Each structure stands twice: as structure tokens, then as C-alpha cells.
């Protein structure tokens, strides 16, 4: 300490007059250069970050944009009473209906093998799509039904150019004959590529052309709802007690240290905890958004407690004094004065915590939310996937169509995160402007 105070003192005694002017100018130039350098480093760092983000987004968009459109083929299916019994349409011979519809558009198949190859043009689910349309509208029995049917993945890829025509036939997923048939359909004006609504309104499927995120979005919504309903009230109550009422002693210090540590625990550990406690001990259903929400709540809780405590700390003590001075009880001081002032900060922190939870994958994998489920969950107890786990499943699937859908899924997830952060910013500005 003494050396620190001594050194500048002796400099000061020597005085600026004894330092030649050019030496002082040099020092000033060096100082200014150092300032400029620091600013440049900052700009360079920001530019790097923005560049990397741009690369990420461009890669995702380049890989994923094709999943937002889907090749469809318009087919007129003859719904003859021979194949479909008007009294019981569900039991009809739908396979034949589909075959007849396709046959009418293409040259007659020479062999059963060729007929099978022809049938591969439409999605495997075509018979169910046609069946459901007829059940919804039985009056078409005896006439024809025109449906835009999604093309099977390989023909979707052919149409989008990911399967190249100049590849040798034996290395290609579609045969030359199939390409000829497909081109016939194109010539007839029956092929279109509209926006792929199925991506948002269908649940998962084995067939990429009809796989969508509806199940994952619903599952994520339920899980986040459970997470919010648990972590928000518990987190705020804990933070209020710790910040406003708890005595400052060894025990509360210990609690504080543990909460801070909890915020740093890897998420997979919470998944293991959920597996051991919620599934094995309490016997809650596997893959359910309820369990996912509980696990995510454990993860979000420390975040909410920490941001709430910081928001409470930021409320000026003079407001508390004013409240106590007026004879308000501690509960009244907190509820009337401190909490309303801290609310913008609390809400912002909570939404950011929830956004983190929305993107969390590892704990959901451990409690089975990466199951293959082909319908959206009807409630928090039904098996479901979530957005990040759906992306994980698709990333693992071999079909070409899932490559683009993985990127599209990531873009959808990023879109939700963006919306949540925008809400956080909006809420903060809106609430803070009130006073």
C-alpha cells in the first residue's frame, strides 16, 4: 500500500514542468492509441459474434427452407360402390381406390412390380387421407374425389432437386421409370409445391412428407405451462423470503450458496433426478409433459430466484423506509411497494428462464420425451415430445426429407425463443413506463 502511494507522490513532486513537452505529447498519443485499440477490440468482438450468428442462421435457412414447401399431386380418385360400402365407408378397399386413381393418370402398369413402383409416388398414407375425406363427406361415394396428396419423400426430393436426375440409376432412390411417370404428372399440371402447413398442423410421422411439429409444439406448451405454474410462484416466494425476511446467518448463507450452485448444475443431472424421483419413486407417467415441466421447473427455479432477488435488491431502500415510516407491516411494504417496483425485472427474468427451459433437451431425453408419438398430447399426462427433442429425433432419422425438417424445426424453435424474448422486452418497457 505504501509503495503505491509513494510512487505517484514522488512523480507529482517532480512536477509536469520537468517533463519535456514532446515526451508528454508522446505519452498522450500512446494513451489515445490505447483507447482506440480497446474500442477496436470491442467492435471486432461484436462483429465476430454477429458474423457467427449470421452463418448459423444462413446455414439453417439454406438447409431448412425447402421443408416449408411440400410437393403435392392432384389426383381424382373414383370412389366406386364396388370398393367402398356406403353403409360402412371405413371398411372400404382403400388401397384399390388409390391404385385406380393413380392408374387413370399414368400408362397402364405392365407388371405387379411396376404397379408397386407407381404406388410409391404418393405418400404411403394416401389411403388414410382419402378414407378420412370420404368419411367426412360420404356423398362422394359413387362419384370421384379430387385430393391434393403429398408426394412421397423421394419424389418431393426429386422435385426440389435434392435427388439429381443425372445420377446413375443404380445409385438413385428413384428409377428412370418413376421419373418418367412423375414427369407425366408434371406435364398434366397435377404437381404443385404449396406452403407446407403439415409442418405445423401434423404430428410426427415415419414419413417425412407428412411429419410435422404439432405434437412437439403442444408438448412444449404443456411442459412450459407446468414449469411456469410451479417455478414462478415458488421462485418469487423464496426470493422474497430470502431478500426481505430471512435473518442473515450461516443457514441462509448456505441456502444462498446452494441456490447459486443449483443454477450451474448441468441440465442432464436434473433429468436423472426427474427419472429417479418423479418416474421411479412417484410413478408418474413416462414421456408426459407434466414430468417434463416438473424437471424444467427445477432447472428454472434458481434462475427465477436469482433474478427476483436482484430485482428486489434494486428497489431503493428509501421506499421501504417510507412504507415502514407510515406504519405499514412488512407484508404491506413488500406487497404494496417493493414487489410492484420489482415486477418488470422479475417478469423479464422469468421469461428468459422459460425460454431457456423451452430449448432444454437433455433432461427431457432422460424422462422419455423423445418417444415416437404420432398425435399431439391431449393433456399433461399423455405421452408427448417437445420441440428440442423432436429436432433431436428428426436429426437422427435417415430419410432425406428429415434433414431439411430438422433445420426447419430449429428455425421454428428459434422463432418461439425470439417471440418470448420480444415479450420480455415489451413487458419491461411497458411496466417501467408506468411511473
Amino acid at each position, binding site marked *: 500500500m505504501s509503495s503505491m502511494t509513494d510512487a505517484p507522490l514522488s512523480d507529482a513532486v517532480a512536477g509536469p514542468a520537468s517533463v519535456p513537452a514532446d515526451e508528454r505529447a508522446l505519452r498522450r498519443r500512446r494513451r489515445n492509441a490505447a483507447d482506440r485499440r480497446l474500442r477496436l477490440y470491442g467492435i471486432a468482438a461484436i462483429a465476430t459474434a454477429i458474423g457467427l450468428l449470421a452463418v448459423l442462421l444462413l446455414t439453417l435457412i439454406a438447409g431448412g427452407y425447402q421443408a416449408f414447401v411440400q410437393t403435392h399431386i392432384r389426383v381424382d380418385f373414383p370412389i366406386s360402390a364396388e370398393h367402398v360400402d356406403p353403409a360402412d365407408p371405413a371398411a372400404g378397399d382403400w388401397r384399390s381406390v388409390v391404385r385406380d386413381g393413380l392408374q387413370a393418370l399414368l400408362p397402364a402398369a405392365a407388371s405387379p412390380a411396376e404397379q408397386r413402383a407407381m404406388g410409391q409416388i404418393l405418400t404411403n398414407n394416401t389411403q388414410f387421407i382419402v378414407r378420412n375425406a370420404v368419411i367426412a363427406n360420404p356423398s362422394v361415394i359413387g362419384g370421384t374425389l379430387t385430393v391434393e396428396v403429398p408426394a412421397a419423400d423421394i419424389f418431393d426430393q426429386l422435385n426440389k432437386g435434392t435427388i439429381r436426375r443425372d445420377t446413375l440409376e443404380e445409385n438413385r432412390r428413384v428409377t428412370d421409370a418413376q421419373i418418367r411417370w412423375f414427369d407425366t404428372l408434371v406435364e398434366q399440371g397435377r404437381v404443385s409445391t404449396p406452403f407446407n402447413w403439415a409442418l405445423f398442423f401434423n404430428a410426427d410421422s415415419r414419413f417425412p412428407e407428412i411429419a410435422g411439429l404439432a405434437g412437439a409444439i403442444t408438448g412444449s406448451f404443456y411442459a412450459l405451462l407446468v414449469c411456469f405454474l410451479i417455478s414462478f410462484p415458488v421462485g418469487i416466494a423464496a426470493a422474497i423470503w430470502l431478500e426481505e425476511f430471512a435473518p*442473515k446467518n450461516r443457514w441462509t448463507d448456505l441456502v444462498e450458496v446452494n441456490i447459486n450452485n443449483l443454477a450451474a448444475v448441468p441440465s442432464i443431472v436434473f433429468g436423472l433426478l426427474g427419472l429417479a424421483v418423479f418416474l421411479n419413486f412417484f410413478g408418474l407417467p413416462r414421456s408426459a409433459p407434466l414430468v417434463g415441466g416438473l424437471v424444467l421447473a427445477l432447472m428454472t427455479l434458481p434462475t427465477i430466484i436469482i433474478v427476483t432477488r436482484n430485482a428486489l435488491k434494486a428497489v431503493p431502500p428509501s421506499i421501504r423506509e417510507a412504507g415502514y415510516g407510515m*406504519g405499514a407491516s412488512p407484508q404491506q411494504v413488500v406487497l404494496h411497494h417493493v414487489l410492484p417496483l420489482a415486477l418488470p425485472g422479475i417478469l423479464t427474468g422469468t421469461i428468459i428462464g422459460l425460454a431457456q427451459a423451452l430449448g432444454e433437451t437433455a433432461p427431457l431425453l432422460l424422462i422419455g420425451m423423445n418417444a415416437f408419438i404420432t398425435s399431439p398430447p391431449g393433456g399433461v399426462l399423455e405421452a408427448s415430445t417437445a420441440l428440442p427433442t423432436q429436432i433431436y429425433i428428426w436429426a437422427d432419422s435417415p430419410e432425406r426429407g428429415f434433414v431439411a425438417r430438422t433445420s426447419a424445426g430449429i428455425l421454428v424453435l428459434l422463432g418461439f425463443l425470439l417471440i418470448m424474448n420480444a415479450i420480455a422486452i415489451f413487458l419491461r418497457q411497458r411496466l417501467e413506463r408506468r411511473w
Partner: protein
Amino acid sequence: MQQIAAITPDAPAPAPATPALRGEKVSVHYGAKQALFDVDLEVGRNAVTSLIGPSGCGKSTFLRCFNRMNDTIAACRVSGRITLDDEDIYDRNLDVVELRARVGMVFQKPNPFPKSIFDNVAYGPRIHGLFRTKEELEEIVEASLRRAGLWSEVKDRLREPGTGLSGGQQQRLCIARAIATRPEVLLMDEPCSALDPIATAVIEELIDELRENFTIVIVTHSMQQAARVSQKTAFFHLGRLVEEGLTEDIFTNPVNRQTQDYITGRIG
């Protein structure tokens, strides 16, 4: 609570000879550190008593004993006896919320709630249940703002936030807020230290007017202010009450050597 109802701003209570507040052997410890040593002081009714002394002398600590604001500091212990109208305010059965309705406080920095001007003044009556109808509440708010000399300036913008007022207006709003519960005693902890000279003059004038209805204890760093507004002055030094008496006597003819040094600017 009956006393509160009896003392309205419009009908001042007759001044009895007994002191409003009396401290006997008051000592305060912050943890192991003693901040106040055996202070005996009587505060006269309907008069202004100023507490002066250098920083850290314990005058604010002593002031905060009167409405038990020290309770909010965990490490703080108060011993001795303090009475308000011969009632021990540190009695186990006394409710601190009611005490603070009877002993109002104005702080160093103006600290209006970030609510409307009306809600600021109405806050005390609301939490203490001092009105039956909306009209009664409006009357209380208007009377309090009038007493604080703020009514004419804010009557057209009662719904605007109190934090939008100027510093001096904010402090008068805080005074209006404090007197809205019709307290007997008003404690002021350096109420003008954050204000400019003009706003200070307004507040000092106000203090002089409020003396009619309230017993006022004021902590101040400004000896001129103590001389201007108070009838009685108590000088604190290093946690002890050094001298107390009529303000005139303290400033013109102090008995104690330390008091003389302080008021002439030699210590402090």
C-alpha cells in the same frame, strides 16, 4: 387510537404541561458497537425540538427510537425507556403499526411512493382504516395537502405521479403523507439536506406552522436552521447528550465547552 381522532388539523389540542415524549437512559447498540449512551431527554408538546451535533453523534439513531424504526435493523438493540404520553413505546403489548400512525416520520431524501399524489397521501389513512367513505378520504387528502402548503400547486394533478414533482414539492408531499394519519408527533430526519435554499425556506416556514398541531422533533446539520425553527435544542456528541435547553440559550449562552466549540464551528 382515540387520541388520534381527537387531534385533528382543524382543532388543535390544548397544550398540557407534560412532555409528549420522554426518553430515560436510552442506549442503542448496533451489534457490539454502542451508538447511544444513557440519553435522558424530554420533548415538549406542540414545540419544535432540534437535535444537533456532528455526523455520527447518534442524533438520527435517537430520533429513530421514537417510532421504533430501529426495529427494522436486525443488529440494533435499544435499552432504557421511551414514553409517548406516559405510555412505554417499547412495551411488549404495544403495536408498532399503531405507534407509527401516532408518530409520523419525514426522511432526509424525499421518498414519495411511485404512485399518484393522491395515493401517496391516502396511503396512511388506507392502511390504518381512518375513513369510512370516499368523501372522507378525499377530505383527509385535501386537508393534509393544505396543511403541507402543497394543495394549490397540485390540486389539478392529484392523479399524476408524486415522483414527478420537484424536490421541495416532493418533501412537502412526504410531510402531507406523514400528517394524513393525524399523528401527535412528527419526526424529521434532516428534511432539508437534499433541497435548495428556496425550497428549504418553504419547508422551514411549514415546520413553524405545523408546530401548532404537532410535536416536532427535527435532526439537522444546519445550526442556522435549528436556530430558526426550534424552541428547544439538544446537542449530541459521540453518542452522548451533551447539553439541552431553550434554543436561545444554547446558541447564545451555552454552558458546555463542547457545545460552544460546535456552534462556533470548531468541531464537527
